[in-house]
């Protein structure tokens, strides 16, 4: 059973074909990785799936439902949650409120209940605050709940972003280079964290990552992009043995 099915996805920026006819599938409950050299179109692919860009052609199916033409927030409500390559947190909200933002977007009180501070609104807010605390604890940030994101070190900001993405309890979690800028210890911790989260939520994860260690340890299936096109796919061993992939990463062998 596939949670995500992408068929012939393409986008052109002017004359630049950033992503061309990429087809891929992500199996439910698995970790699927997308790797490739810089500028291969990985993040563009993520932006297409999560609705930031509209594709020139092609189709995106989430859990059997066509989500190609939906807007960003609609896609979030359908069950795709993501993190960003360059961390994008809300710096004027507390860490707890950052996580809560995902739950707030799903809270069902209206503006009159809000401005009058009616009991229904208070109850919902309280529930969501407690729920957010659970996600903060999950990534080990419970002790900094009331602080602001910009006072956190880089590695913790990454974990906060992960908690925020998890809080909407997505069907598919998309992580854009979650281990970038982490030191080797933090990378180990990160791998452990992903395993733990997958155990708790039975998540499907789509991962972009440059650290091959992370990719090979975690992935069930790997897709390789190069110049916006799909170069290869397979499991970890197959990709490591693939001559085309090695050439794309290391450059062609002259003789």
């Amino acid at each position, binding site marked *: 059973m596939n949670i995500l099915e992408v068929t012939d996805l393409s986008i052109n920026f002017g004359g630049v074909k950033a992503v061309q006819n990429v087809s891929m599938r992500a199996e439910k409950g698995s970790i699927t990785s997308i790797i490739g050299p810089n500028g291969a179109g990985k993040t563009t692919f993520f932006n297409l799936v*999560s*609705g*930031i860009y509209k594709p020139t052609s092609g189709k995106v199916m989430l859990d059997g439902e066509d989500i190609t033409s939906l*807007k*960003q*927030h609609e896609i*979030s*409500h359908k069950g795709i*949650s*993501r993190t*960003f390559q360059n961390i*994008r*947190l*809300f*710096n*004027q*909200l507390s860490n707890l*409120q950052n996580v*809560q*933002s*995902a739950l*707030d*977007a*799903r*809270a069902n*009180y209206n*503006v009159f209940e*809000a*401005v*009058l*501070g009616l009991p229904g*609104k208070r109850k919902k*807010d309280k529930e969501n605050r407690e729920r957010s605390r659970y996600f903060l604890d999950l990534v080990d940030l419970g002790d900094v709940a009331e602080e602001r994101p910009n006072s956190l070190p880089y590695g913790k900001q990454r974990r906060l972003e992960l908690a*925020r993405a998890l809080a*909407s309890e997505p069907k598919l979690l998309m992580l854009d280079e979650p281990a970038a800028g982490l030191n080797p210890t933090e990378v180990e911790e990160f791998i452990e964290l992903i395993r733990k989260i997958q155990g708790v939520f039975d998540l499907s994860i789509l991962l972009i990552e440059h650290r091959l260690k992370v990719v090979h340890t975690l992935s069930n299936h790997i897709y390789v992009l190069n110049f916006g096109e799909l170069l290869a796919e397979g499991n970890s061993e197959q990709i490591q043995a693939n001559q085309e992939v090695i050439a794309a990463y290391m450059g062609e062998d002259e003789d």
Partner: protein
Amino acid sequence: MGYYASVLTTATINLMAILSMYVLMGLTGIFSMGQAAFMCVGAYTAGMLAVRTSLPMVVVVVISVGMGMLSAFLVGLPVVKLRRDYIALITLGFGEAIVALLNNLSNVTGGANGINGIPRKMNIYLALGVLAVLIFLLLNFKNSKFGRHCIAIKNDELSAAAMGINVPRIKLLAFVLAGGITALSGCLMAYNTTFIEPMAYGSVKSIDWICFVFVGGVSSLTGTLVSGLIFNLLPEVLRVFSLYRIIVQGAIVLLIINFMPQGLFGEYELSDLVKKVAGLFKKKPAVAGGDKQ
């Protein structure tokens, strides 16, 4: 009504309009350079109804606020999908257009002569009462999911949308809310001054409001209130030097922006202080209990 009471009433009503700028700029990060036009909408709706019909004040106020919200909705509909700088331009254009419209539709609005003879029904108590209610509602708004949505959008629109926040809708909500508040202020102003004319609501007034909010601290409701009060009372205090008023105001804005870019209050709210003080008092009984043993 005494002189001080009358000055304070006018300041209080102006303060309401400045609060609408807090909703737009402080919470949501939208620059509206034509916000005074909504005050104009409120004032004219109230003025025309009060002079030409015998509707009670409450009904007139409700209709005026409704008109403000409706016009904010119509302007907001195309505006909220644009980038920040374009929003500033379009609202500026809208503001000037409203003033021009009222100036030229002289058979309906009285043109540049304005509208005379509106009954004076405002006093200091009523004004303060309305302001208090407004602050209560706005604080609740800020501390709800809507307030947090607004701040999230101000901080990072892309990321807010990725969390499932309908960004254009929340921006429109902020716009309509602000339009309603500004129209309320305009309506009460009409009942306060008994006379309205379109030129008083040009972009200069909107830009004044932007300056006030920045001086007080763009992210602080308390700051907005304090600086709004100062700048509204300043002209009265400096009445003798009225020629230099604008220079003094400009100097204060420049100094604040240079030396305190976060504004006087930054992100601090009076309610934070109240909470802290309340926290101190809560701890005391425990200590006292310890002493007894």
